């Protein structure tokens, strides 16, 4: 068996709730709210004002910054409100039918431009603008493209369903991505708990010389890009470095499909597949939904909440964030909406660290989460940085295994935030 990354955990996966359910299309929502910041990088500035009529696929917000991605109208209709955080559109089905034309392209630069204009970002959850990832800086060459189909977060099954149902589109997308970044080969890494996806893609790749499918062990966080690179190539991304330093680019499977749709069909990123799951929702499902759809509508579409639902999480249970309002919209990075019951959300009181070092064993980045949390609590940020605070990928393994129930990742996030805001002030 191939070696994998150090540490990691085996949380209860709960994927059986949705893993075998085909993707269903949700009807157009009555109104959508498109946030101006759905990606890592600079927020966009609105290009439309209240009262404007927009058609689906129209660019409604953009930014001059390199690390940013434009916001595309996911439905057509009248702009109902524009505020500091987002743009609201009242849906008009007339303007919401997509009729695009495939753009023409020659060079990798053209492809990257099309991807940017389509508003595509990494759809695994981090939402890093895809065109930036595909632009290696001067002097760095990309030789391998890794397609991330690990989907290690419990509950989520969007990537799984995409790999099973949209395999052909995925392969087309990979071919375009290979051209865009100049890599010679692509490896699709899939966790072994998705045998149907592995089988489907292996069959489709049989005649592709430079694309191969590889099964990786089931361990969280296998889908972290650094972890997946270690599992597939045996190489480690240097401290403080990027996969590009190894000549590797990692893209999520849903991103590759979006790239295919943008480049080959001219269809920008207007929808995505979201897993609506958890034991607090009536009918868990994998739903293709327009971006900006209120979470409330999405949950209604899946039969609504059960009475014992206590918490709604945007993303997976390990790295996702609880939502404060059901009116919050689905964004480009929303891979799942989890409606959890009390039995699934266990809230514990924080106790004192007993120095068992289970977090150290579990950390896939080989950090010392116990000390990171301690330094953060004592506001000793310099010391935290010295033991590589910023290398933490916030996967949550440490908090998961901690017998003292210390919210270690929260402490780490606090330290990162405090350091960054102090730097900004200077």
């Amino acid at each position, binding site marked *: 068996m191939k070696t994998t990354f150090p540490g990691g955990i085996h949380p209860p996966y709960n994927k059986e709730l949705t893993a075998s359910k085909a993707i269903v299309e949700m009807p157009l929502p009555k109104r959508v709210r498109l946030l101006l910041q759905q990606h890592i990088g600079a927020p966009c500035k609105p290009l439309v004002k209240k009262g404007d009529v927009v058609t689906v696929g129209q660019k409604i917000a953009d930014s001059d910054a390199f690390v940013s991605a434009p916001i595309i109208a996911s439905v057509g209709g009248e702009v109902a409100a524009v505020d500091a955080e987002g743009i609201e559109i009242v849906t008009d089905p007339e303007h919401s039918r997509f009729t695009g034309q495939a753009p023409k392209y020659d060079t990798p630069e053209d492809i990257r431009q099309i991807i940017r204009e389509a508003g595509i970002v990494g759809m695994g959850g981090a939402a890093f603008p895809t065109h930036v990832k595909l632009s290696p800086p001067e002097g760095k060459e990309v030789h391998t493209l890794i397609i991330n189909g690990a989907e290690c977060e419990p509950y989520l099954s969007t990537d799984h369903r995409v790999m099973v149902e949209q395999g052909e589109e995925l392969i087309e997308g990979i071919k375009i991505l290979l051209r865009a970044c100049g890599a010679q080969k692509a490896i699709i890494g899939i966790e072994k708990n998705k045998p149907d996806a592995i089988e489907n893609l292996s069959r489709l790749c049989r005649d592709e010389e430079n694309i191969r499918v590889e099964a990786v062990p089931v361990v969280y966080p296998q889908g972290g890009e650094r972890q997946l690179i270690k599992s597939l190539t045996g190489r480690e991304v240097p401290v403080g470095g990027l996969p590009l330093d190894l000549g590797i680019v990692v893209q999520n499977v849903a991103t590759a499909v979006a790239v295919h749709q943008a480049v080959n069909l001219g269809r920008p990123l207007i929808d995505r597949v979201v897993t609506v799951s958890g034991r607090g929702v009536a009918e868990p499902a994998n739903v293709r939904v327009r971006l900006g759809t209120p979470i409330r509508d999405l949950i209604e579409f899946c039969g609504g909440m059960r009475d014992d639902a206590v918490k709604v999480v945007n993303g997976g249970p390990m790295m996702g*964030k*609880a939502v*404060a*309002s059901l009116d919050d919209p689905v964004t480009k990075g929303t891979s799942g909406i989890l409606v959890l019951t009390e039995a699934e959300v266990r*809230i514990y009181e*924080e106790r004192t660290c007993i120095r068992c070092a289970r977090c150290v064993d579990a950390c896939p980045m080989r950090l010392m989460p116990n000390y990171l949390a301690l330094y953060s*609590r004592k506001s000793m940020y310099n010391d935290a940085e010295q033991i590589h605070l910023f290398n933490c990928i916030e996967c949550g393994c440490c908090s998961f295994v901690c017998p003292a129930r210390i*919210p270690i990742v*929260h*402490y780490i*996030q*606090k330290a990162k*935030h*405090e350091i960054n805001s102090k730097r900004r002030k200077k």
Partner: protein
Amino acid sequence: MEFLVEIIKPVLSLTVLAVVFGGILAWADKVFAVKKDPRVDEIIEVLPGANCGACGYAGCAAFAEAVAKGEAPVNGCPVGRQKVADEIAKIMGVSAACDDECLKARLVCQGSDDVAKTKMIYHGIDDCRAAVLLHGGDKTCPYGCLGLGTCVRVCPFDAISMGDNGLPVIDAGLCTGCNKCRDACPKGVIRMVPEGSAVLVACNSHDKGAAVVKACKVGCIACGKCVKVCPEDAIALVDNLAVIDPAKCTNCGACVEACPTKAIIRL
């Protein structure tokens, strides 16, 4: 005689060595002398010696050095206050003006648990700086005090305690104006206010009136009544929030009476 010579030899050689090394030491003392400002030691003598760091320097000695160099003001020690400032001023040969230094920390939020609405239940670290990472904290008002007591814990002088209503209480008598609570507060609801001010706009919300009313019963809705009623023209609306200019304010209290939401309070 033989043995006398044997004794004299080492005595002589050691004496010569001692003279030579003594000479080198005397020379080095002159050449490599570190010039130390004698005032530094004098200032350290009069400082409280708590090494609290409230002045912004790494302890009293560092502060004394900075004062002697002229980098720090003579009244830079917030703990020693006027008494210490006067003594340092005497050493430095200047006068210690303390006009704007007598500042007290004040909480500019009255959004206690019973009047301010919350948008969610927060489960996490008991620290405002951590709570603010998730949707800006649990209060509906994005500017309000989160009430998790970060200021209480950073105060080196025990001047802040947590009240029963979920808001911190600042003891102005114990507050030395060291700014630590102000710097730690992620919402910026602690402001430094001149000691003499008796009226305070106890709200931090820059939202428009309608949004403020939805979030909190005692928020400034920027109605402008205080601006109109003030006989000294000391109040202005800045970004949907009333701001009192302490230089003009006479503490007459007309604004306190006029404020419809009781966002302006008498201290």
